[in-house]
């Protein structure tokens, strides 16, 4: 049982059910803990496909049925809410605009910030619910003074606190993550689902970006932004290749550059910089990717904003490792210095700061400082 679900007062809980196994088990655990749970599936695609194809994507009609079936087995009311328009505006269009600007967004964070714990939560609260429950692996710990802390899941391998790093106090106060204290393998969650009679027990996990069903992000972006031929240049500015749109690249990317001539030193080249203004992609050796610091904007804090400089561990990608940083809030922007240079940091991604297992806050990476003299 999680900390939150041990509270004596049963809550009116809205369980977001994707049709996958995690959110189904989360809803079942919340109901078992004595909460008054209602399931809701978010219809996020304006034109849902009938069936899932492979392990990608979500929001198909089949997913909606799977969620409904799970809710029926758990014995809770179930509804489908159409948030497709909000999702398109706040997540999909933002995703495209970010790529267009040469950045690499994380749409899952955006969805948690703007959809699950904003549009959905606001509607839930207005309708008289106390909390939104999801199948994320993270823990909310309630302090004696009533304040809340977001922590990594007990099982570090499953931890999803990174994509929840955007949640503020108010959002955390209404979040329930019944899977957060589970030290378990996916197989064990599946076994629990099986034991509970949930047919989604054997369903494959979803990966990648849910609104790009075929997994072809470049194709999706090209379709939306159109092709725009431009130069690929090296660090000296010499043109060594061409591309069909700078937006299709990510800092640190190695594959798909299609440069005919090999580098002078024969080593692989990576995307170092994307300049949407002149539609140029700069490539160079791996060493040039090393970053010594960064500036991040739009900080959000789980609790009070820290004052003065501090040292933290930071996570820079959804499945990335931890790195030691010194960080300080200067004029509303987060200035971060890495203890050791870090390779391949992409503007647009989130930096989430931790104090031990506790999430301190997050911000969106705006600019990076290269460790070596560079572009």
């Amino acid at each position, binding site marked *: 049982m999680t900390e939150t679900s041990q509270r004596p007062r049963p809550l009116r809980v809205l369980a977001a059910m994707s049709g996958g196994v995690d959110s189904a088990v989360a809803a079942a655990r919340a109901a078992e803990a004595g909460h008054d749970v*209602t399931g809701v599936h978010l*219809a996020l695609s304006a034109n*849902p496909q009938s069936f899932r194809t492979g392990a990608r994507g979500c929001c198909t009609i089949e997913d909606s049925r799977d969620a409904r079936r799970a809710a029926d087995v758990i014995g809770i009311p179930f*509804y*489908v809410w*159409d*948030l497709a*328009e909000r999702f398109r505006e706040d997540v999909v269009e933002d995703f495209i605009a970010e790529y267009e600007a040469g950045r690499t967004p994380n749409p899952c964070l955006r969805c948690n910030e703007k959809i699950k714990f904003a549009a959905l939560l606001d*509607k839930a609260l207005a*309708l008289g619910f106390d909390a939104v429950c999801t199948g994320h692996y993270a823990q909310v710990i309630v302090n004696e003074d009533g304040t809340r802390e977001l922590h990594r899941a007990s099982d570090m391998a499953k931890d999803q606190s990174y994509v929840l790093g955007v949640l503020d106090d108010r959002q955390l106060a209404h979040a329930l993550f019944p899977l957060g204290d589970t030290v378990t393998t996916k197989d064990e969650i599946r076994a629990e689902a099986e034991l509970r009679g949930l047919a989604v027990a054997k369903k494959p996990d979803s990966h990648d970006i849910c609104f790009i069903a075929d997994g072809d992000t470049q194709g999706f972006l090209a379709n939306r932004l159109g092709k725009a031929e431009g130069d690929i240049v090296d660090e000296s500015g010499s043109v060594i290749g061409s591309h069909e749109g700078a937006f299709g690249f990510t800092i640190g990317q190695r594959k798909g550059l299609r440069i005919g001539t090999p580098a002078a030193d024969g080593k692989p080249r990576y995307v170092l910089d994307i300049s949407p203004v002149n539609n140029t992609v700069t490539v160079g050796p791996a060493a040039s990717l090393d970053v010594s610091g960064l500036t991040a904007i739009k900080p959000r804090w789980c609790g009070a904003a820290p004052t003065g400089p501090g040292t933290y561990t930071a996570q820079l990608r959804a499945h990335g490792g931890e790195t030691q940083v010194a960080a300080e809030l200067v004029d509303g922007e987060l200035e971060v210095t890495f203890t050791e240079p870090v390779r391949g940091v992409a503007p647009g991604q989130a930096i989430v700061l931790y104090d031990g297992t506790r999430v301190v806050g997050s911000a969106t990476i705006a600019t990076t400082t290269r460790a070596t003299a560079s572009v």
Partner: protein
Amino acid sequence: MAYLDHAATTPMLPEAVEALTAQLSVTGNASSLHAAGRRARRTVEEARETLAEALGARPSEVVFTSGGTEADNLAVKGLYWARRDADPARTRVLASPVEHHAVLDAVHWLGEHEGATVEYLPVDSYGRVHPDVLREAIARNPDDVALATVMWANNEIGTVMAVRELADVTAEFGIPLHADAVQAFGQVPVDFTASGLAAMTVSGHKIGGPYGIGALLLGREYTPVPVLHGGGQERHVRSGTLDVPAIASFAVAGRLAAEQREWFAREIGALRDDLVDAVRAAVPDAILGGDPATGGRLPANAHFTFPGCEGDSLLLLLDAQGIECSTGSACTAGVAQPSHVLLATGADPDLARGTLRFSLGHTSTEADVEAVAKAIGPAVERARTAGLT
């Protein structure tokens, strides 16, 4: 519990349950020649006679189907094919835009796959097709019209159509008119012969009979091309072994629906009026959908638009308090769409999202109305806070 979704399905009448269960343990295929077959056939034919009487039709005009959807499909597609086969020029289908999806999607399919030109007849703000509108549409070229289809009473907003007058218009041009009378049967006088219709759909589970049984009332001069081919049952227009227990039970429910219709209109109509008054008292700006005149709407229907609310939110809030109703509109994968019926009546698309349909039935009580009276005000207030997403 306040069950106020009888238009979706209504509890079976005890007499219908008895008839169904009594027949379930009797063996016999109504097409067989031996004694068991004869016994089954007798049950079916007696049921046919009972239903024919209840609906003002001849027994031979009753074609049993698996329900309203199948009867609608048989009428719309079957009559289209038959009329077009007789004269290839007949490809125009006239339909009201407020039809149930069983008709709407069938005519749409004819347009997509069978070369039909589908023309939707304009309706007034109550959702009613006027006879002169129908006349104008036909008169543009009477020779190319395959059929017209206009429901007897609307399932969402309860408006009753002037079926006899519409049939008079189609009769002038010799064009068959079909009406989906699924919601009308048992609530307003339905007399097939007097209506002048070529075909009329009724369903079992909407009148206290079982699921999975319905009928197409079909004038004897019409032979629609079958949708289901097979053993040639039911005048060769609807093959398939007859469901004897369901048919027997349907007939009992049909007889009772006709016998109790006046009581139903009076008593359930009065309860409905109380419900409308209660909702209006609690939510003064609620808009009653459909024709407000007693004679112009189904006695058991109360349809409202609540400005600033999502029907979904209201449904959830009322459901949580044991009040079961509907937003009235069809769902796509569980996502409520703005009602095509309301849009056809000229309603604002945002308003059309905030609807609830309360439909009463033979088990409705004053307590049901009181439950709504108590819950609707706070629910609307709360749903307005949640707003439109």
